[in-house]
């Protein structure tokens, strides 16, 4: 379940470079979101996220990089785009999720190691699962 985590906002914690990078990589205007929560309400995986999709946008625009980095949310998102088609503001959250994932992956920190996938799964998984998963979870 989504936890209620207290968030401390201060100029000391603000990571302007992070906000800039997220905007650049996603091409999204983070100020567009008015926090209605349609993204979270329509997300089929939100129940398994520790920080809700709506909250990710708020944390991103406040530049709270550490709060986002310590959450598993962006790694749970399967880019199904249910949030995108239901957003009344035309905001593409899937691109923000991707930008945040890439900021980790591009430091050469993989989220999934191919060798950790059980051998039986590697045999049985359809190619589209392996190719798409490893594209999303490795740098």
């Amino acid at each position: 379940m989504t936890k209620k985590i207290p968030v401390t906002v201060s100029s000391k914690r603000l990571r302007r470079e992070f906000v800039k990078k997220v905007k650049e990589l996603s091409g999204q205007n983070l100020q567009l979101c008015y926090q209605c929560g349609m993204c979270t309400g329509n997300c089929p995986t939100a129940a398994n996220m520790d920080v809700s999709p709506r909250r990710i946008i708020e944390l991103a625009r406040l530049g709270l990089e550490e709060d986002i980095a310590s959450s598993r949310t962006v790694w749970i998102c399967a880019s199904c785009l249910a949030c995108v088609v239901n957003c009344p503001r035309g905001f593409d959250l899937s691109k923000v999720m991707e930008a945040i994932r890439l900021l980790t992956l591009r430091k050469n920190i993989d989220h999934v190691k191919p060798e950790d996938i059980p051998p039986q799964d590697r045999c049985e998984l359809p190619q589209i699962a392996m190719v798409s998963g490893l594209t999303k979870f490795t740098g």
Partner: protein
Amino acid sequence: MSLAYYPGCTLKTKARNLEEPAVASMEALGFKLDEVPRWNCCGAVYSLADDDLIHQVAPVRNLVRVKKAGETKLVTLCAFCLNTLKRANLLMKQDVDKRNTINSFIDEGLDYSGEVEVVHLLEVLRDDVGWDVISHMVKLPLRELRVAPYYGCTLLRPREVAIDSAEDPTILRDFLKALGARPIDFPESTRCCGSYEVISNPDDIPEYTRAILDSALNHGAEALVLTCPLCDYNLARGQKELVKKNSGFRRMPLIYFTQLLALALGLGPQVCHFELNHGSPESLLREKNLLSAVENVRPIGG
């Protein structure tokens, strides 16, 4: 009539049971699916980062080859490939700077700017063949079959590449009606099955699939009709776990839309490769007397 066709990696191995009934059915309907020469993996997912052009090269290279072959339309069948190729095509149409960079990198001797139209086989069945013609060609109507159309994500999202309405799609329902089946609408028909999350959080998959399967069952479906090999894998894997944990959980047979098409056209079970299905639909189909071949299926005008 011949159509340029992109199969993709999964359809040549794990999901021959999606492809082979499609090829046979289209032939029975008078269309030849002609594979794109030297096609390569499309990359399976569309890159969502603005600065990441290298992941657009694989899908665009396929589109360039379609243009080189003198074709203007490309038929896809895998839901992932459709999405990736169609989004890459849109990028090449709309973004001049990125188009120029990708064209100069690929260097195939011809520039590409999104001239090819990327479509899914269901669109060909709807727009080029027509439900009436299909209905007329049916030799073995699927009359007693109560099936729930399950779309998943990539055929409908994002809106710019959707093959039908993102909120209230009817294309699979209309298709099933043309085959004589009884389509069962259910609210989770476009809910994600967990997709590639199966490689990072496989334990979450049963939960995602439960929402879909329970909903279809509660609305009276006997089987789920699929379009995507990853949905087939995840839904079957999820069911297996749910049965293990809960003895009361009822398995739902899973079947590809192309298998139903082949059966309805009277092509018989041999083209369907049911041995590759993860969601064992055979006993249900046998119960409904749908596994027999019907003689004398001829192409239109043939």
